């Protein structure tokens, strides 16, 4: 189940949202930005939806606030009133993935959340792949260091050493090819 967080000052919207999507996603809703931050801390949130027009704090401002600590969840802005300048600004700064206007279309919204979740997981996957690659690269570097050491200052190579070097080279090739 996808973990979705929805922030809106209108409580009825929260109820409607939960009722609409609780069967498909793990839905977390709140009217308070502070509560939203708490949920982010405690739950593995993949997608964050926020209303733009709220007292005290706008949606874009909320996103800006949580960015440093929670950069991974995909952010979507929901508003009934086109505050175009804020939206353009937010999109350009990469703070939001999608802009959704009220009233929402349930299936569309559902698809968007799905998409956002996929994006989230894709990014996660990319991140772990990258980490694994980094690890193999480090090992390969280690092997090459060893080869360097073996060939250092040696005028002639004995069979044993030559075999070691060949083994290490094979392993490097293996490491780099395993992708």
């Amino acid at each position: 189940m996808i973990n979705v967080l929805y922030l809106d000052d209108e409580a009825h919207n929260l109820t409607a949202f939960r009722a609409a999507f609780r069967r498909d996603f793990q839905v977390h809703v709140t009217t308070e930005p502070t509560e939203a931050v708490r949920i982010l801390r405690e739950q593995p949130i993949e997608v964050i939806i926020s209303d733009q027009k709220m007292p005290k704090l706008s949606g874009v401002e909320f996103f800006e606030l949580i960015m440093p600590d929670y950069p991974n969840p995909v952010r979507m802005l929901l508003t009934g009133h086109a505050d175009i300048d804020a939206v353009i600004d937010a999109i350009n700064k990469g703070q939001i993935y999608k802009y959704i206007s009220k009233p929402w279309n349930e299936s569309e919204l559902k698809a968007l959340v799905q998409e956002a979740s996929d994006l989230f997981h894709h990014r996660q996957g990319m991140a772990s792949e990258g980490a694994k690659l980094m690890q193999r690269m480090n090992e390969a570097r280690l092997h090459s260091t060893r080869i360097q050491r073996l060939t250092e200052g040696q005028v002639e190579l004995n069979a044993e050493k030559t075999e070691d070097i060949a083994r290490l080279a094979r392993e490097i090739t293996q490491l780099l090819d395993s992708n």
Partner: protein
Amino acid sequence: MGCSIRIRGLRTAWIGVFLAMISTVGAQEFIGTRVESLDQSLTPALMGVEAVALSENWSAHTDRVPNLGLSDDVQWIRVILDSKTENGMLLEIQNAGIDELTGYMICDGKVTASFERGVIASSHVESTMGTYPTFPIPLTECDELTVLFRLKSSKPLLLPMRIAGPREIIGDSHQRDVLFAAYFGVILVMLLYNLFLFFSVGDRSYLEYSLFILMIGGTQLVLNGYTSYLQIQSLPWLNLRITHFFGVFSGLTTIVFVQNFLRLSRYVPWLHKLLNFYFVIYLIAFVLAIFGQLIWSYNVINFCAAAIFFCIPGSIITMRKGYAPAKYFLLAFTIFIIAVLVFVLKDSGIIPYNAWTFFALPLGSAIEMVVLSLALASRINQLKKESAIAREEQMRSLQLNERLVREQNNVLEDRVKSRTADLEEMNSTMRATLEELQSAQQQLVQSEKLASIGQLTAGIAHELNNPINFVSSSAQSLRRDFEDLNEVVDAVKTLDPAMEDIGSKVEALKSKLAKLDIDFTQREIDELLKGIEDGTMRTSEIVRGLRIFSRMDGDNFIQAQVNELIESTLIVLRSNLKDVATVRYTLADNLPLVTCQPGRLNQVFMNIITNAAQSMEGLEREFEDNEVYIQTALTESIGQSWIEVRIKDSGVGMPEGVKSQIFDPFFTTKPVGEGTGLGLSIVMGILRDHNAEVEVESEEGLGSEFIIRFPL
């Protein structure tokens, strides 16, 4: 011109009479060569008459008319008479101006008779025959008959003497009298005529001329022994000096007359100054005469008389300078000077002493006067001509002026016309500009209105979006929840207590219930329904507010509740205000309806509330500090009920300079492009239409408050 003709007529008449008279005066025999005078240096001061007569120092004269000159001393002369032929006759000295004159008849060395005939004596001596002193030659038989004269005078002792019978003397005297009478007649006529002219014309030169005539005539009168007619015999002091005085005054009047007549100050300034000098000298002569220095006085007068010669060059210069009357003047003075010359030459014996020469002076002076009259007339004509020319000149310049004025008027008229046309053109341009401005203003007002409407629409869209969003979403969710419930219900329906596997079925149902989380579903249904109810209510509230607010374009005055207007404004503004400030309000529940244009009042409230909210936008502070507080109340002041609306914010406030301008059109504190600056000016216009009062209180940093009072 008439003046001149009359004068000419007079002249002809008088000159005719005068010439006729003169022709009757025969040649006279003077006995100058028989006169002997006593050398004064050899004559003791105090001497008896007889001793004088016996003196050895007599010397004979050679002139027909002896001239003893001017001297302060006593003079003696004698004439040896022929006692045979001349006794019983009269000895006449034709000089009436001798101050002291005593004649002694000496018969054989004895004084037989003496006669006082001097000017001084004339007061107590019977006038002799005629105007000249005469001495009767006694009829006494004598061997030697001598007449001795003692003379003393402050005037030259010119002694034309003759011996003639009484009949001849009296006859001549009468003739002379007639001639002088004619002369004085001329003088008098001239005098009166010129005086008359002076009084009628008012020209000063006539008076001067009159005085001049008077003095010249007077001088002739005195010189020819007619002093007695002046009746001053009883005043010897004056009698002694009368000749001097007339000499002085004729000189003075001549100078004044000449100066003014010839306009010397203008034409010959140097002569004018010179004559002024002579004027002063004459005055000195006058003073000398008064103080008894008669000889000196006479000398001075004589010296001054030369001034007359300056009249010739003066008049010539003046004439050359185009002053026509000067030619008459020149003629008159030339004649007069010739007469004087004749008179002088006659006295010195160069030309014979006869009636013509004798009368040369009065005749010359008479002619001079007549000619001067002509000169005056000519002067009058000249003046007339000059004044006519001046008038003509004036007329011409007047006409010129008039023409200029007319032309100027035309120019002015043209200019006024062109200016008027310009003005009209400018006027029409301005009218067009004004119309453009008015339409621009209308457009601005319209666009301000449209902007408000746009702002509102956005706000209302948002306000409506939320309830629509959750109502529609809830409806879909409800359907799913009911599907779940229906599934359970359907399952329950299949249950029959008679069924053998009822227990397992119930168990299955229970697990289904648990799986569907029916408890939650039920709670959710409740919440969703509540949301739908709330959403519907809110939607209808917004629509109602909108309906009230949408009277914006309705400019009709109707009865409306101010509270309701404010509430509807707040509804449509809610979403705009939501993220800016909290709105609090206290609306009095006793407000009566007020006659107003609700749509336009909404615009007023919306403008002020929006401004209030904007004054707090972007302030770095807690959201709770941003508050708009609206209050309505019923108040009483100055005997009138008012509905008072206060809209207060806790924004930035305004400095005095801004506060005083907020209602000015196009004044805005917002950046360029963000406000038209018309909002509050429109508000002011609307409130003015409602006779409402507006008061603004503001303190920088603390906020502003708008207080609006509607009269009831």
